[in-house]
């Protein structure tokens, strides 16, 4: 930026020199030309003040015209190009020029008119008439002398013609001595003086002598000197001529000279009137031009000073609007404009700082965005490659996205999303499942989907996603294909059931077979104790069959758990209702309840949950050997309603805590080990769970979790 500015400054300086040098050259050439012309005509160019004035006028005029013309063209071009600051500069300059031009021009016109009028008044008719009259008086007086001298010259010439040439010189002396003539010159046709009387009066030049030989002769020439004469001459014969001179009366000559001198001054002044006017006009014109020139010059300077910072400001604003913030207006002043420029520079600095911060933030944002994009891509790839189906579900239950596995499960392609899903029959199945799942924030449900004659078993999990306001805006449905696992588990379960059944059936079958073999043996032997044997045997068989019946019933109950029917209800009531029979039946068992009055209602299946609670009570009573204390309390978390049941029995060993909810696991001598498995399954059907209370060390503690 600085380099560019320096380069521009050098260019501007070069242009300025050219702008100054060109007119200066023209001016020097013009002055040289004028000098040459004047010198050729006048000899010395500055001898005549009028010429000096004319040169000054021309110089000022040309300079002024050049300045104005240049500014006019420049202003016009800048106006057309809509250059910054051109309009205000042109306006200011025009105002300054007019301010100098109008009054100066008016003054000049007034001065010219006044000069014209004043000078003309000096030469009015009365003055002219008086002067002319005086001159005529002098002329008339001298004319008398001229005429007299001419007549006398003619008469002398005639007298001399009558005298022989050799006597003419003495005759001349005689005439002077005896007459009114003051001087006489007799000379030949070659100009040589023959007789001069009195001698040494004055030298008569050859022109006057030649004149005497002309037809008119010499008539009344006045020669002024210490002694002034009127000379007249005539030819004497063919080869001689005579000039007679009369002394001019001194007094008359003095007066005549005075009048003539005044007349001369008048005539000269009159002749120089025009030159006087010209010199005055030239002087005023030079003065006016100097004033206008000064006004224009000052105007230009002021205009430049005023408009330059404005122009810089406009250019700066333009640069800033183009986004260039690496600039500072190089203008320093203590006036208001300087303050504006300073504020502008500060504003640009602030903008630059803000821009830098924005760029930095933008960069960080972009990097974060790229990282997020990379993460998103990674997650997307990960999600796409997962072996579980992941489906994004909108607020209104519409399917938004689905990964590769999910599309495979649902029989969809990418282009089918998101609109087509609602028309798919499978969607209704998922939707129904979702309705149940939505009641359980972390619910999982096994869903069977039939698609293209293929049935898949899936574990559907629904994870709600909340927005910034905490509202659930969408949910993620996770579909885990457990078809193979389910089949395997089912086979394993059947194997286990078969094994258990075989085992459980095998146990009573042995005493039954042994009883039957004993009865047959006794009967074959005809033993006396046959009757007793029959009684004992049948009793054993009956007992074992009853045991088998009990076992069958247990299996049947486990297998035929009814579907949960959820409805709002009070857990406190449920607890109290469930505990009531045991409080009466076992007097050594003390029940204590911590049941908050304002405990909110929860959705559950009353019958099945009562079975769960009773099962837990029975286990505690049995573990405490019918004596002890059972504490029941209700509590609430943000998701769960909790029922805690603690007893004062021996507690649950750590090693069996993990296994106690599995079917057929039991520490009792009697029972199929299905009780806690049924409890766990019922709570699972509710979307809840049961956990061993590890924090309680006074006995066994179990906590039931139900969704709120």
């Amino acid at each position, binding site marked *: 930026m600085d380099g560019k500015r320096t380069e521009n400054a050098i260019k501007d300086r070069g242009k300025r020199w050219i702008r100054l040098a060109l007119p200066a050259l023209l001016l020097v050439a013009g002055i040289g030309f004028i000098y040459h012309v004047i010198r050729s*005509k006048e000899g010395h160019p500055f001898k005549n003040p009028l010429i000096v004035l*004319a040169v000054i006028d*021309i110089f000022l005029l*040309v300079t002024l015209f050049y300045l104005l013309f240049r500014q006019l063209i420049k202003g016009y071009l800048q106006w057309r190009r809509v250059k910054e600051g051109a309009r205000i500069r042109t306006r200011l300059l025009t105002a300054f020029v007019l301010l100098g031009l109008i009054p100066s021009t008016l003054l000049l016109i007034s001065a010219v008119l006044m000069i014209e009028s004043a000078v003309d008044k000096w030469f009015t008719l009365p003055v002219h008439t008086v002067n002319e009259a005086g001159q005529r008086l002098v002329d008339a007086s001298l004319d008398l002398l001229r005429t007299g001298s001419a007549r006398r010259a003619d008469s002398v010439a005639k007298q001399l013609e009558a005298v022989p040439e050799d006597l003419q010189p003495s005759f001349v002396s005689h005439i002077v001595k005896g007459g009114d003539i003051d001087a006489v010159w007799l000379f030949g046709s070659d100009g040589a003086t023959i007789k001069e009387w009195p001698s040494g009066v004055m030298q008569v030049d050859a022109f006057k002598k030649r004149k005497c030989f002309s037809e008119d002769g010499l008539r*009344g020439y006045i020669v002024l000197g210490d002694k002034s004469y009127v000379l007249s001459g005539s030819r004497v014969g063919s080869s001689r001529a005579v000039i007679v001179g009369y002394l001019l009366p001194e007094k008359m000559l003095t007066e005549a000279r005075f009048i003539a001198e005044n007349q001369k001054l008048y005539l000269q002044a009159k002749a120089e009137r025009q030159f006087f*006017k*010209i010199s005055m006009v030239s002087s005023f014109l030079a003065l006016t031009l100097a004033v206008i020139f000064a006004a224009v010059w000052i105007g230009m300077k002021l205009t430049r000073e005023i408009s330059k910072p404005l122009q810089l400001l406009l250019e700066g604003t333009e640069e800033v609007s183009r986004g260039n913030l690496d600039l500072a207006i190089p203008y320093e002043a203590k006036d208001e404009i300087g303050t504006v420029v300073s504020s502008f520079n500060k504003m640009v600095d602030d903008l630059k700082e803000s821009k830098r911060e924005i760029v930095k933030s933008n960069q960080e944002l972009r990097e974060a965005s790229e990282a997020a994009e990379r993460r998103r891509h990674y997650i997307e790839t990960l999600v796409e490659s997962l072996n579980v189906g992941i489906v994004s579900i909108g607020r209104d239950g519409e399917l938004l996205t689905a990964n590769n596995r999910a599309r495979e499960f649902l029989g969809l392609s990418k282009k089918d999303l998101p609109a087509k899903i609602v028309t798919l029959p499978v969607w209704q199945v998922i939707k129904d499942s979702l309705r149940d799942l939505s009641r359980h924030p972390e619910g999982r449900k096994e869903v069977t989907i039939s698609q293209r004659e293929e049935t898949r078993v899936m574990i559907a999990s629904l994870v709600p996603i909340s927005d910034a306001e905490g509202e659930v805006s969408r949910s993620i449905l996770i579909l885990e294909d457990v078809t193979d696992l389910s089949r395997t588990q089912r086979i394993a379960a059947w194997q286990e059931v078969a094994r258990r059944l075989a085992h459980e059936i095998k146990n009573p079958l042995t005493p039954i077979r042994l009883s039957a073999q004993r009865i047959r043996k006794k009967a074959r032997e005809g033993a006396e104790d046959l009757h007793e044997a029959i009684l004992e045997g049948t009793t054993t068989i009956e007992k074992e069959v009853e045991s088998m019946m009990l076992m069958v019933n247990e299996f049947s109950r486990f297998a035929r758990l009814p579907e949960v029917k959820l409805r709002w209800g009070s857990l406190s009531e449920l607890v109290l209702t469930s505990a009531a029979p045991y409080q009466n039946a076992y007097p050594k068992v003390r029940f204590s309840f911590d049941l908050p009055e304002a405990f909110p209602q929860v959705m559950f299946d009353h019958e099945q949950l009562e079975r769960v609670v009773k099962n837990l009570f029975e286990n505690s009573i049995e573990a405490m050997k019918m004596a002890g204390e059972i504490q029941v309390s209700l509590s609430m978390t943000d998701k769960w309603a909790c029922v805690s049941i603690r007893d004062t029995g021996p507690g649950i060993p750590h090693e069996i805590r993990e296994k106690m909810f599995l079917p057929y696991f039991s520490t009792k001598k009697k029972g199929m080990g299905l009780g806690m498995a049924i409890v766990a399954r019922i709570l699972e059907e509710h979307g809840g769970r049961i956990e061993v209370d590890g924090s309680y060390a006074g006995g066994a503690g179990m906590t039931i979790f139900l969704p709120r």
Partner: protein
Amino acid sequence: MRRSLAILLLVAAFTVQAKGPKVGKISCGFDNLHLFVTFSLSDGFLSQDVLDAINSTKPTTFTYEVEVAKKRTGWFDKTIGRRVVEKTVTYDNLTRQYDLVTAVDGEEKEKISLISVEEVEESLKGMTALDMGSVVDLSPGERAYYIRVRVTLLKNFVLWIIPSDEDTGWTEKELKTP
């Protein structure tokens, strides 16, 4: 603007010259390897303006410029010889005579008194056998030489400030060298 001013000056100068006197016949002769030039002004050269100037009693100078020049192609002509004769007439309103002083190349040669305007006109009308000097430097038979004469009668101004003398302009005549 400057162009307009220049045109105005040219037109003014042309008008002044067109209306003013002209140099009439120019004749030249050689005597003893000296060139002598004779020329006269056209009638009426003593206009009322000139007479008024003379009768104002201020010295009025008539300048006669006579040059021998050689034409050059594509360049200004070369001035070989030049004579400037100044005849200054001063009217004495006391004696009603005209003093005429003649100077050649600044050197006063003659001073006479004339009693009438006719005599003044006759004296100013032209020059007779003005000695232009030796012609030894001129190439014999060369046709590029010429004589040019200009007479300046009055000093004047155009538009108050522009000097514009009243003169005849240059009149040329071919010089045939012997």
